[in-house]
């Protein structure tokens, strides 16, 4: 079970995350917790849920990075969840067969009834995408909302991960990255989508779109303001007084 599928899956479902448009509103974080605490597997614990310094299990988190400095510096909101890697070591290290990668669409899941909570898969994930639940004692991770995308009782338009559906900035896209003509594959091609930590060789399915170039004019100082009233008069007098 914990062997990776022998052949690349015909579909590779995953997310494309746009670092240019993400506004860091945390809506995807909250809706992920909301959907998944009542969906696939055990609920996502918080301890102490109502005390000071609560610590809990979340499958999606938004980090905030500063990139560049001075006038070229910018804030980049950085959502991160499981990347459903092709070369998923988290699957092969699992001693029980609880971790597995689906042969049909490449989604990496945990069978919580088999998980012994050893935590080795979390060590094997370079991205910190797996969290051991403090109450259930089993490993939790992003499921790409398998219980939404396959839910035939939901309207077609709602069969996508909760984070994608809720994003107000359309910074999250869901689709088949094995299909070169899919919306997500085209986005990756057009915008130069990239892999996180490609040097480790995990070949993540999820891609990130880089922030677009800045629009602040190569760090040049702003031009001097124009003369308020070149024709004199009251405004000209006021301009002179205030200067």
């Amino acid at each position, binding site marked *: *079970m*914990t*062997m*990776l599928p022998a052949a690349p899956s015909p579909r590779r479902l995953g997310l494309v995350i746009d*670092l240019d448009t993400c506004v860091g509103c945390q809506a995807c*974080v909250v809706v992920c917790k909301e959907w998944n605490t009542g969906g696939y597997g055990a609920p996502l614990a918080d301890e102490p849920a109502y005390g000071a*310094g*609560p*610590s*809990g*299990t*979340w499958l999606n*988190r938004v*980090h*905030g*990075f*500063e*990139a*560049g*400095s001075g006038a*070229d510096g*910018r*804030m980049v909101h*950085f959502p*991160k969840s499981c990347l459903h890697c092709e070369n998923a*070591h988290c*699957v*092969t*290290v*699992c*001693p*029980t*067969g609880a971790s597995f990668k689906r042969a049909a669409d490449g989604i990496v899941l945990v069978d919580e009834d*088999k*998980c*012994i*909570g*050893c*935590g*080795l898969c*979390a*060590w*094997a*994930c*370079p*991205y*910190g995408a797996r*969290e*051991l639940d*403090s109450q259930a*004692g*089993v490993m939790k991770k992003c499921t790409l909302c398998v219980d939404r995308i396959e839910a035939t009782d939901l309207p077609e338009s709602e069969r996508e991960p909760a984070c994608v559906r809720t994003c107000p900035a359309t910074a999250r896209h869901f689709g088949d990255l094995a299909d070169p003509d899919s919306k997500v594959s085209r986005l990756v091609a057009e915008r130069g989508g*990239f892999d*996180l*930590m*490609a*040097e*480790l060789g*995990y070949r993540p399915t999820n891609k990130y779109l*880089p922030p677009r170039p800045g629009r602040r004019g190569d760090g040049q100082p702003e031009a001097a303001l124009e003369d308020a009233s070149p024709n004199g008069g009251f405004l000209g007098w006021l301009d002179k007084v205030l200067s």
Partner: protein
Amino acid sequence: MQPAPSLLLFSTLSGAGYGLLFVLGLAVLLGIVPPAPLPGLLGLGTALALITAGLVASLGHLRRKERAWRAVSQWRSSWLSREGVAALLTFLPAGLLALFWVFGGRAPWPLALLAATGAAVTVVCTGMIYQSLPPIPRWHQPTTTPVYLCLALASGSVLAALLAGPWVELAIPAFHLLALLTLPLAWAVKWWWWRSGDLASPSATIGTATGLAPLGKVRLLEPPHTSSNYLMKEMGFRVARKHAARLRQIALVLGLAVPWLLILVAAWAPSPWFAVLLTALAAAATLTGTLVERWLFFAEAKHTMSLYYGEQAA
């Protein structure tokens, strides 16, 4: 990485137990130890007790212990599973060898060979669990498994020297000599491991982890949550790095210098009981030094996940 007591105890105690089992198996194959009941009981009894104690301690690391039996199923892909299988299989020849030796007064060589092989394979699996993890560069180097093997062999040799003591009539102090050889060997490999880990260039940086390197210097501005979480507790542990140099010295003194000198003196001690006392101290020092080494093994190791929590390189 968080140094969990269950894992430190496991690899230190079981490591020493498998080392002892290996040395005893070797001794049987070479015909060094007479197959009398007492050395069999002392030697194999201690080895199996240490192995079992370590394995029981390791169960403490599991959050769902009642499902531990499932861990032997994925030996085709998982080093942890292979370790479990190897550990369980090794009990068979080791237990049979103990029965033959203690009750039958003979030590069949095929059982000794299988037990020694099983011990070595189990320790290799332990080392490979760590060595096979790319996100932890300090562990993901080719000398990690040799470190585990050599330290297990050295601890086992020291224990064998202790247990040979006055109870076993040996023509030469074979186990003492073995300990005097394997202790420096093990810590030399360990020293090499420390040095290569220190000198290695980072596997990944905050720039490649976020893909933002083209924009310039990247730093964490807003963590994703206000308090700690599982990832930070389990993989963001960094208490030890401040005292790493001092702790390495302590590990070297306790694990190498002290036991080596004690065993050197014990090998030529006039009274056998004085020799036993010295070797017992040597064994205690070796195990304590190895425990410090194991603690550092975890505490010094940096996980690439920490790049998302403010580290610049890992």
